[in-house]
């Protein structure tokens, strides 16, 4: 099994499928504390990514897949999610470089770069009740797994599970960034929709890696 361009392509397709299946759930989460468009936006963006990959053919490197993803999300998603996920995949693309296959260390670097890009754009910190509350534990778990000598599937699984736990951890938080911050204390008791889409996307990375195994 190798984290090559076919894996990255599969990752994006499985992300699109997961976001489409969960469109209503994400929109409902967003309606509770935001403006009810996250599911719609993410489905529209990732469907466009799949269309672009199908129209252009699968690129030669994971980095090139991430770049196509970044540019498409930036031009199709809008809202806050477009620039945030767009920047994440753009930074991931840069970190992946022209390598045809990502090894464990490169994989962790890619995930960390994605997280750092979201932080740079959105200026959120852990505890602000944003997608960073899923991304940060995911990157930490991936780094821990990698230093313990795990392979790509185990690293991605650790990341996805940590993102899921991070998502659950957003429930009691009071939002300090984005539209949910206007609710103040009333934002507590709800899951963050951006953390929910992050968990879906990272789980899709695991499924893609297992399929490539």
């Amino acid at each position: 099994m190798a984290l090559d361009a076919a894996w990255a392509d599969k990752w994006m397709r499985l992300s699109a499928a997961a976001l489409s299946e969960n469109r209503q759930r994400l929109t409902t989460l967003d309606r509770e504390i935001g403006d009810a468009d996250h599911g719609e936006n993410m489905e529209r963006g990732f469907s466009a990514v799949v269309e672009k990959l199908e129209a252009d053919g699968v690129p030669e490197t994971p980095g090139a897949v991430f770049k196509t993803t970044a540019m498409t999300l930036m031009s199709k998603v809008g809202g806050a999610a477009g620039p945030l996920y767009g920047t994440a995949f753009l930074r991931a693309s840069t970190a992946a470089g022209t390598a045809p296959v990502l090894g464990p260390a490169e994989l962790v670097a890619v995930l960390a770069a994605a997280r750092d890009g979201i932080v740079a754009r959105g200026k959120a910190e852990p505890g602000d009740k944003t997608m960073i509350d899923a991304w940060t534990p995911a990157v930490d778990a991936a780094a821990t797994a990698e230093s313990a000598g795990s392979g790509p599937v185990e690293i991605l699984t650790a990341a996805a599970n940590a993102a899921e736990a991070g998502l659950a951890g957003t429930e009691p938080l009071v939002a300090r960034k984005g539209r949910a911050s206007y609710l103040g204390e009333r934002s507590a008791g709800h899951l963050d929709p951006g953390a929910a889409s992050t968990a879906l996307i990272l789980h899709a990375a695991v499924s893609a890696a297992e399929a490539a195994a």
Partner: protein
Amino acid sequence: MKKLINNPRSVVAESLEGFGLAHHELVQIHLDPDYVLRRDVPVEGRVGLVSGGGSGHEPLHGGYVGRGMLTAAVPGPVFTSPTPDQILPAIVKSDSGSGVLLVVKNYTGDVLNFETAAELAAVEGIDVRTVVVNDDVAVEDSLYTAGRRGVAGTVLLERIAGGAADRGDDLGKVAEIAERVNANVRSMGVALAPCTVPHAGEPSFTLAEDEIEMGVGIHGEPGRHRVAMTNADSITDQLMEPVLSDLGVASGDRVLLFVNGMGGTPLSELYIVYRRAAKILEERGARVERSLVGNYITALEMEGASVTVLRLDDEMTELWDSPVNTPALRWGV
């Protein structure tokens, strides 16, 4: 959900098509990516004024494209900011060589997407400045929130900055006037009933029969707290108090009073609010020199209203009165 639509996904495009047909003498419509341009762009020797944001706030922003206001407007999907690939061509086509001022409401998505577009426009050699409108006193501006939102004050800013651009002020001067409007305008809104975003299909929030949401933004998203339903005068008092104390309105101040409908409240009720708000200003010793009442920045069919007070100076008043010819605001022509 009962709406006069064909398909939730084609609401923006079909609405834009109709808007373009109805106002073809003033505007031209570009679809995919979506943006609205003045019929006569670029206007030689004039700074371009470009704004945009989610759809569902009509007539903002497309309704304000034309002489004396915006050069271009960029509509996103309903309640979702537009993307940089829409905003960039609107900037490029609005630039006559005199530069472009972007008017951005302080919402996270709007700020991020316009920021990206401004960076791309700068790479193309266009002189771009940005003013971020944040007139909503319902939201505390602190390190722990996204900051005060841009709401109804945006309409007043677009008119006055547009007047400055139309008389030939340079980019620095237009931006300075826009910042001056932003520094002197405050708003606060209330919702009596929610709206339904077409693609969501369900109301964005729920309110009991006897409660109202004080301090809503233009999507119905809350700002302060839910309170018991009461009469119009009492609601107006609750809207005006934070506006006036935040703006620091004093005796002798000259102001523009703007009562805006959110889309589902009749004009008669807006005038009832205006009546009380004007009386409060009079009691403070402020002079209401200009006014605006109507549905100018809406939240689909949400029931509710906002009050906006702008402290005027001579130049702002002169620019407010200067000719404007747009689908939604027109005088002096």
